[in-house]
């Protein structure tokens, strides 16, 4: 466009003009030449310049390479600088985005956060189950019981004891200690581990280091690598400014020392200046705690699946046996219980009012007569344990014949020869008793609850029967005489005294208010001789005995002698006797009647 063809010829005017012209010409010519040579490049430069000045065009150009250039930068190891440069903008952008509309980021993160949360929860549950399994496994073994005892003894929770025993090693505490001042810089502790004041522990650790070094004349730069106390070990790694001490329960692998060494190196790298300038202020070292926490390793024994099986089998068998025993006991107890209830209800003087379960065992409420059997005895007889069933007694008076009978016996206290029976409320007393007791029986029996009526017809007074006995003794007394004589032989003499005694006893038993007692002294003879003679002889004999009895102490007014001859033969009484028995005197008690009294 600006191209002009070079001029070949120029008109010549004046010299000055010509010189002027010439300079002009030269410039023109140069210009023309430049144009001729550089026009395409110039055009290109101009176009580039225009492009540089145009922001839109430049942005368009950059957009084509920005991704590649970032990638290149990262590849060439400048990632850190790039991150540093981008971070504020990215952070700001995120903040701005959330401020404007949180749902955008939430929606974007949703697919990430869901699985992350699920994973975290699953991990928590898995570790919980694992610890539960471990506890279960150990709970049921002999070892588990031993550990449980240990837990009781030491006061540690069972899970803690289990962990301690299945522990290979656990780093419980890590101390970061400033070497020069032996002051504590940072400290961290595993969960559930109790600690003493860590700043004092760090001091003592340093003191022990100094002590050992000094005691064994070790070089100053040497330090104690480890201390072992029972199950605990303290591992120490030393840097130029600080030392790291880890308290380990169990036996850590040698590789753990490398972890500690790496950590102390990292701390020196990150906190070198703070360590150098330390004047007692530990605040800057709080940032080192995550590094220490990384050192809190622990390792437990892996589970041995095969080992568990025998326990499972033993437990299963034990459970079966227990179940069988429980079933058998339940059936057996049920049977016993039914028998017991029947026995209890059958027992006189006991009325079951209710039965049921209370406080884990049977409770039977019952009415109980004080004279009835103790229900505990019934329980024992039925083979039931005292824990199995308990009683609540309510006292009452039973009208059961058996109980009424016991009650009557208790109240009336019958003498030994009397038996009392109760049937349908009727008290029947039989036997011999003192007349005094007999007389009062009716009144007293009426006061016994349950006695409706008294039957005393079977009772006789013991005094009356004694009289009868004496009377029969008297009746059997026979004084025998020789033929035709009204005087007994000497061997008969003793009979008078004993007969007199019987008669006097009978008199004594006679009530003073009734008629005096009368004894007939009856004289007999055998059938030989005449009737008249015999009558006289029998009379003499009767009078003779009467005299003798009076001599022996019997009052005359109680005796009535008379002869009967042969009219009332003694033999009637003794059919086997011979005639000699008819030559005798016999005695007979007669009921005292006024007309017979002399």
């Amino acid at each position, binding site marked *: 466009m600006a191209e002009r063809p070079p001029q070949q010829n120029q008109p010549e005017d004046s010299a000055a003009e010509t010189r002027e012209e010439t300079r002009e010409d030269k410039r023109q010519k140069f210009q023309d030449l430049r144009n001729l040579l550089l026009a395409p490049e110039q055009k290109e430069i101009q176009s580039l310049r225009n492009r540089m000045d145009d922001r839109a065009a430049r942005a368009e150009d950059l957009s084509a390479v920005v991704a590649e250039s970032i990638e290149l930068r990262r590849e060439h190891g400048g990632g850190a600088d790039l991150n540093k440069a981008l971070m504020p903008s990215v952070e700001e952008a995120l903040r701005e985005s959330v401020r404007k509309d949180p749902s955008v980021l939430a929606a974007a993160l949703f697919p990430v956060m869901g699985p992350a949360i699920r994973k975290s929860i699953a991990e928590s549950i898995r570790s919980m189950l694992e610890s539960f399994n471990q506890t279960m496994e150990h709970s049921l073994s002999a070892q588990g019981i031993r550990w449980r005892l240990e837990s009781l003894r030491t006061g540690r929770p069972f899970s803690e004891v289990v962990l301690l025993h299945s522990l290979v090693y656990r780093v419980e505490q890590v101390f970061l200690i400033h070497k020069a001042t032996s*002051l504590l810089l940072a400290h961290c502790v595993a969960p559930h581990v109790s600690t003493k004041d860590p700043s*004092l522990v760090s001091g003592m650790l340093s003191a022990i280091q100094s*002590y050992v070094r000094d005691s064994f004349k070790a070089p100053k730069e040497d330090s104690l690598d480890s201390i072992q106390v029972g199950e605990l070990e303290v591992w120490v790694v030393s840097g130029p400014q600080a030392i790291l001490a880890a308290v380990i329960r169990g036996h850590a692998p040698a590789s753990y020392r490398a972890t500690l060494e790496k950590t102390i190196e990292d701390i020196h790298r990150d906190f070198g200046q703070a360590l150098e300038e330390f004047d007692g202020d*530990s605040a800057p070292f709080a940032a080192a705690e995550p590094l220490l926490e990384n050192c809190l390793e622990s390792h437990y024994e892996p589970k041995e699946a095969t080992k568990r099986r025998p326990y499972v089998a033993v437990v299963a068998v034990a459970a079966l046996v227990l179940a069988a025993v429980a079933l058998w006991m339940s059936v057996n107890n049920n049977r016993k219980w039914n028998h017991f209830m029947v026995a209890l209800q059958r027992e006189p003087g006991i009325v079951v009012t209710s039965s049921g379960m209370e406080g884990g065992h049977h409770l039977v409420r019952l009415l109980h007569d004080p004279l009835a059997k103790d229900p505990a005895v019934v329980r024992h007889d039925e083979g039931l344990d005292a824990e199995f069933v308990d009683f609540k007694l309510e006292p009452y008076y039973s009208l059961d014949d058996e109980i009424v009978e016991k009650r009557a016996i208790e109240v009336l206290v019958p003498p030994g020869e009397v038996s009392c029976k109760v049937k349908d409320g009727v008290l029947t007393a039989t036997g011999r008793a003192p007349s005094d007791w007999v007389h009062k029986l009716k009144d007293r029996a009426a006061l016994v609850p349950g006695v409706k009526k008294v039957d005393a017809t079977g009772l006789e007074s013991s005094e009356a029967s004694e009289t009868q006995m004496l009377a029969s003794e008297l009746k059997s007394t026979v004084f025998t005489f020789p033929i035709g004589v009204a005087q007994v032989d000497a061997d008969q003499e003793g009979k008078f005294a004993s007969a007199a005694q019987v008669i006097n006893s009978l008199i004594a038993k006679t009530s003073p208010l009734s008629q005096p007692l009368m004894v007939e002294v009856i004289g007999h003879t055998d059938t030989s001789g005449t009737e008249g003679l015999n009558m006289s002889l029998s009379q003499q004999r009767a009078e003779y005995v009467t005299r003798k009895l009076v001599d022996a102490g019997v009052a005359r007014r109680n005796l009535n002698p008379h002869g009967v001859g042969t009219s009332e033969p003694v033999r009637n009484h003794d059919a086997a006797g011979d005639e000699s028995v008819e030559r005798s005197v016999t005695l007979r008690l007669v009921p005292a009647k006024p007309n017979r009294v002399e």
Partner: protein
Amino acid sequence: MLQKKICMLGATAVGKTSLVRRFVESIYSDEYHTSVGVKIDRKPVRVKEKDLVMVLWDIYGADEFQSLRMDYLNGMFGYLLVADGTRKSTINDALTIQESVAKDFAKMPFVFLLNKADLKDEWEAGADLEQNLTARGWTVMHSSAKTGEAVEEAFHTLGGKMLR
């Protein structure tokens, strides 16, 4: 947390341990003295409006200074030099200790305690000695672990010197 290590120095039986016991509630038994030769305690105090934790190294007394483990003094920020006012020999021991310590720890803050102030009528420490020491720039205090006299004060004075 600002921590400072402080040593208790002095001859045997001048009452260093009793002073510490008066000052802090200890978690360790005194047996540590005979086994390791030092017992460490800790006491938070407030000095010059700063919270400060004093880590007290109560070092087993030594009549013969040679047996004092200098290692234990490393990293201290100050110390209490203790003597028994009723025994002149312990004052001499204290002077010897101070001389040795000053070699390794020049210008280290310290407070000199003449202990057992409750037994003043038995004192062997004269007023001239005190004047002499004060003239040298020492801070001298009379303390009694028995009555508690000047115990807190001594530690606070030392704390103040360390934070200067």
